């Protein structure tokens, strides 16, 4: 970490003009009026349309593929199979186990086998029907336990000859001793089901190769830079002959953070045919692409003292990875590494194993790898509170780790507003009057969590900055900011505009942000791990301050005053001590341009050295952690098992809300997503290995009517290293919504739901089981 990476909390001009105040998104009007261009809106002259042939078998060897009839169909311009793109890739460089099209075998129903480019989609679809593929069907794995126990056949080849994708086992402190000496031990099995992102925009990519062979790819991706690298490798084309652009995107949530088959296919087909090629996936294909939340089976043991103080945590987790690695190496680490706050664990052990199964591949969904363990652990904490008769909020307070501390696995905690989060949800929800007091079928539950704000693990090892910004100044007053960050709706381009406008004293209408274009913008690693506001925000401050120094210096000379008297504010430059002396920023830029020549600046950010000194110690090591607490209030219909979530209070420590509207939006979206996946969604395969319902009718996302009232409470702990103190807000506020829901159901009706999802049939069975047990063992003194 260098000096460029820390900029302090203060506003550049004493008081913030833009930061911390509600602002519009810079692309809001374009999106609301339909003028924003998404990848599928782009059409090029002579453009062909491509479609993908997919495997109808969950696990099979490809014996032969005959594409001759498809090639011969009038209107077909190109047909490719795995042999045309044989180079394996994977977003994590250590696990390149995907190919754009299956080379020798297929690993789930929906796996890509061939692609056709034709004059239109209908012709391409007819051509797919003419491709003859002979398969040798293999035993398929739908159950991760079977995949763990059985080695033949293997889904991927590895040295061990098994179906294990990754195993991580880490010990911190004397765990066994803690369990032996602690007076209270709670053990339990928990499970988290699969869910997917279901972004409103399906994946889409368009490729063009110009007369000089330069390839341009427009793609709905949240990782332009990694797509750029993967294309170069798979196409065997120098990176400087490739340009990747992310147009406006209709949501991603982690579902667009791998390189995908369609990106390679359109590129290759454009090279072959010499014409632009576009592929738009259907909703069904998006469900097959998946990369959603990993199902996990989790055994947790918790040792504590009588006062509720945690002494040890011991976890064993089986992770169902689906058919490819994707981010799985990181997922496996995250499943253990991210649990060690906001509570103080004196000792901790986790043993996580990710196995391959013949299902759509899992990957990172909002709260990657840590939502599942957080669910198990926070429910278990509630069980501890119940056992010790301690208020669950008080129990969490007693274990709170606090700011400027270190976790048991060596993560550095800087700012921490977790106690304030607990206090805010406790007060806002009227917790003390509601807990155990709401009456029949009603209850409240609490949970807390912690999440990373990016990590210092840059996916491929390098020491270059993780984020970069470039600023160009025009004599008209227009300032164009080139940002590598992928705006996936979270507002990262807007955030960049707010920062630069604040630093240079501009109004937002003077800013242009050009983002996520590898020819034009400096590298940013992508929109994942909640890294963008922190890292790109710091890079934007870095670049802006260099530029401001030039402009302020020139003006000070021009007015012959000290630099401290020069203020840049709201599009004007002025002398603090002489109200008569002021000019527009356009004039100020011109004065600076005379002195310094053409104006511009670059800025960067890189993380400090972080993490524990052990293998994997840097995975999950973040420059700052966000904290959340949720209280959920429910009403359970004991006759039907239906859960009505009445209200959710979420307090989230985002360090500093650069735009409180966007932070609240992220909190609301996270709560919505968490509650919906707990109650309605289930990404699963049926007994044939087929996706159980790859459509938005059968995969039930919550509608407006199904969404609870959400109160977002912003807590600002002012992180010393964040841009003006900011940390993440996009993923953290999802985590504890789900365990808080389970805990609220316990408060309401006395059933402990340890296995997701909480569909009415599951709830009804649990209620009936409880009733049967209660009837068998009437409590002493009851007159029943």
């Amino acid at each position, binding site marked *: 970490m260098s000096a460029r990476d820390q900029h302090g909390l203060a506003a550049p001009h004493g008081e913030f003009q833009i930061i911390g105040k509600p602002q519009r998104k810079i692309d809001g009007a374009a999106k609301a009026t339909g003028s924003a261009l998404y990848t599928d809106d782009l059409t090029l002259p002579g453009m062909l349309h491509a479609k993908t042939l997919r495997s109808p078998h969950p696990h099979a060897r490809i014996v032969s593929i005959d594409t001759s009839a498809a090639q011969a169909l009038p209107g077909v311009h190109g047909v490719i199979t795995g042999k045309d793109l044989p180079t394996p890739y994977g977003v994590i460089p250590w696990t390149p186990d995907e190919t754009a099209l299956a080379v020798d075998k297929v690993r789930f129903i929906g796996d890509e086998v061939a692609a056709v480019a034709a004059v239109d989609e209908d012709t391409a679809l007819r051509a797919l029907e003419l491709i003859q593929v002979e398969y040798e069907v293999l035993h398929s794995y739908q159950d991760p336990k079977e995949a763990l126990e059985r080695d033949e056949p293997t889904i991927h080849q590895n040295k061990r000859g098994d179906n294990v994708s990754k195993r991580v086992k880490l010990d911190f402190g004397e765990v066994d001793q803690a369990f032996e000496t602690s007076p209270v031990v709670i053990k339990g099995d928990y499970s988290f089901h699969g869910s997917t992102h279901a972004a409103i925009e399906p994946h889409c990519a368009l490729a063009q190769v110009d007369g000089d062979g330069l390839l341009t790819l427009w793609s709905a991706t949240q990782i332009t830079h990694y797509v750029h690298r993967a294309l170069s490798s798979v196409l065997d084309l120098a990176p400087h002959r490739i340009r990747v652009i992310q147009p406006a995107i209709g949501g991603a949530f982690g579902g667009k953070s791998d390189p995908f088959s369609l990106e390679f296919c359109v590129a290759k087909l454009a090279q072959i045919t010499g014409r632009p090629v576009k592929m738009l996936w259907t909703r*069904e294909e998006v469900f097959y692409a998946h990369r959603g939340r990993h199902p996990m089976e989790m055994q947790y043991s918790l040792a504590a003292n009588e006062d509720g103080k945690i002494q040890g945590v011991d976890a064993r987790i089986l992770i169902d990875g689906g058919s490819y690695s994707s981010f799985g190496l990181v997922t496996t680490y995250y499943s253990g590494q991210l649990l060690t706050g906001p509570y103080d664990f004196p000792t901790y052990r986790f043993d996580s194993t990710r196995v391959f199964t013949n299902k759509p591949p899992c990957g990172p969904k909002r709260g990657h790898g840590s939502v599942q363990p957080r669910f198990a652990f926070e429910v278990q904490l509630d069980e501890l509170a119940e056992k010790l008769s301690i208020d669950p909020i008080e129990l969490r307070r007693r274990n709170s780790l606090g700011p400027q501390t270190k976790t048991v696995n060596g993560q550095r905690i800087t700012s921490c507003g977790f106690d304030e989060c607990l206090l805010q949800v406790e007060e806002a929800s009227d917790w003390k009057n509601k807990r155990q007091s709401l009456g029949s079928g009603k209850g409240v539950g609490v949970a807390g969590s912690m999440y990373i704000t990016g990590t210092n693990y840059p996916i491929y090892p390098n020491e270059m900055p993780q984020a970069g910004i470039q600023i160009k100044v025009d004599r008209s007053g227009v300032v164009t900011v080139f940002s590598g960050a992928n705006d996936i709706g979270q507002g990262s381009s807007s955030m960049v505009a707010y920062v630069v406008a604040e630093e240079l004293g501009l109004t937002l209408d003077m800013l242009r942000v050009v983002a996520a274009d590898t020819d034009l913008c400096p590298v940013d690693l992508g929109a994942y791990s909640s890294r963008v506001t922190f890292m790109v925000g710091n890079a934007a401050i870095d670049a802006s301050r260099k530029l401001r120094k030039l402009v302020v210096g020139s003006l000070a000379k021009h007015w012959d005053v000290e630099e401290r008297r020069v203020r840049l504010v709201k599009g004007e430059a002025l002398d603090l001590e002489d109200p008569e002396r002021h000019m527009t920023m356009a004039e100020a830029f011109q004065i600076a341009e005379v002195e310094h020549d053409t104006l511009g600046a670059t800025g960067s950010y890189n993380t400090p050295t972080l993490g524990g000194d052990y293998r994997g110690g840097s995975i999950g090591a973040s420059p700052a952690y966000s904290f959340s607490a949720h209280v959920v209030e429910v009403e359970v*219909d004991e006759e039907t098992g239906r859960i009505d979530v009445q209200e959710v209070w979420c307090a989230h420590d985002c360090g500093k809300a650069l735009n409180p509207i966007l932070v609240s939006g992220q909190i609301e979206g996270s709560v919505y997503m968490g509650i919906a996946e707990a109650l309605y969604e289930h990404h699963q395969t049926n007994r*044939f290995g087929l996706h159980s*319902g*790859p459509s938005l*009718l059968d995969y039930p996302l919550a509608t407006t*009517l199904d969404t609870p009232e959400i109160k977002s409470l912003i807590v600002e702990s002012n992180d010393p290293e964040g841009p003006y103190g900011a940390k993440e807000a996009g993923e953290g506020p999802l985590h504890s919504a789900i365990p808080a829901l389970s805990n609220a159901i316990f408060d309401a009706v006395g059933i402990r739901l340890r296995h997701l999802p909480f569909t009415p049939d599951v709830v009804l069975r649990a209620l009936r089981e409880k009733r049967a047990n209660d009837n068998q063992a009437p409590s002493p003194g009851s007159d029943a």
Partner: protein
Amino acid sequence: MLRLPSFQLEEPKSLYAALVLLAEAKGEAMVIAGGTDLLPNLKHGLFAPKLLVSLARIEGFVGIEEEPDGALLVGPMTPLARVAESELVQAKAPALAQAASLVAGPQLRTQGTLGGNVMLDTRCQWYNQTHFWRQSLGYCLKKDGTACHVVQGGKKCVAAASNDTAPALMTLGATLRFERLNEKRELPIKSLWSPDGIWNKRCDKDELLTAIRIPAQDPGHRGAYGKLRTRESIDFPLLGLAARLTLDHEGRVQDAEISGVALAARPSPVRGVADVLRGTLPGTAEFDEAVEAAAQLAYKQLRPLDNVPGSAWYRREMVPVLARRTLQAAAKGEGPVHPL
């Protein structure tokens, strides 16, 4: 986006022209009303008609009229939203207004029609899928295959009747007018259904539903509809129940019935409901007990199969709950019972 297959579209302006087109097509045509179900089904490759005959421009097919005897005559192209919002339907056939108000979501009710809902294709988790998906499965009994995946070894398709308005119209004693070129017949809706999920209607595929007639109800008529579904909007029923009570001048139950949908291939009435409820006075313990007995009759008789997504066990467990709540809602002049 999934592609539609190619077909010819005709938009006749008169009923006669529509009947001529259907007769000439000799079974190669399909009728499209609102299209909210047909179009996704076409995209899924469930049908491949050469010709679609749209009913959208036929004069006189939209509207709700009260006949001199108090009966309601509803045009088959009347949007579900209009049926739901009609004060006439709400007053005279409350169960129908309630059922129509719970079909799908607001946009689909504006586009979808009452006739289309009556004639809705049956639904099944093994059938309402894309061609790729069904091909991977090896197809099913209802379309292109020989095996049933709901009842293993089953020889009869048990795809679920999923039309919310069907049980409501059954409890209202509605009759349907079907027409073919130079042919016209009236059929009580209760006689429409057959137990075959492939085509669950006792009418030919080239017969056109041209009117829905709801006879005048007794002054003591009470009706309600209850629906179980996953979400509070959009979803097809996991279970739907319509209830009718006819109260005499003292307010006691004179007659009663319940019909259910989203069970098996056809909507089913529950037998014996009138017998247990007759003579009881709503609001009394005696009535509540009779309602409970009626709910138990429904529980015994209505057995949802594993055809639509979700737990069939749960759907069955909800039969008595929905029956009780819907009967009570009818008695109080309330409803719909939703969410359950």
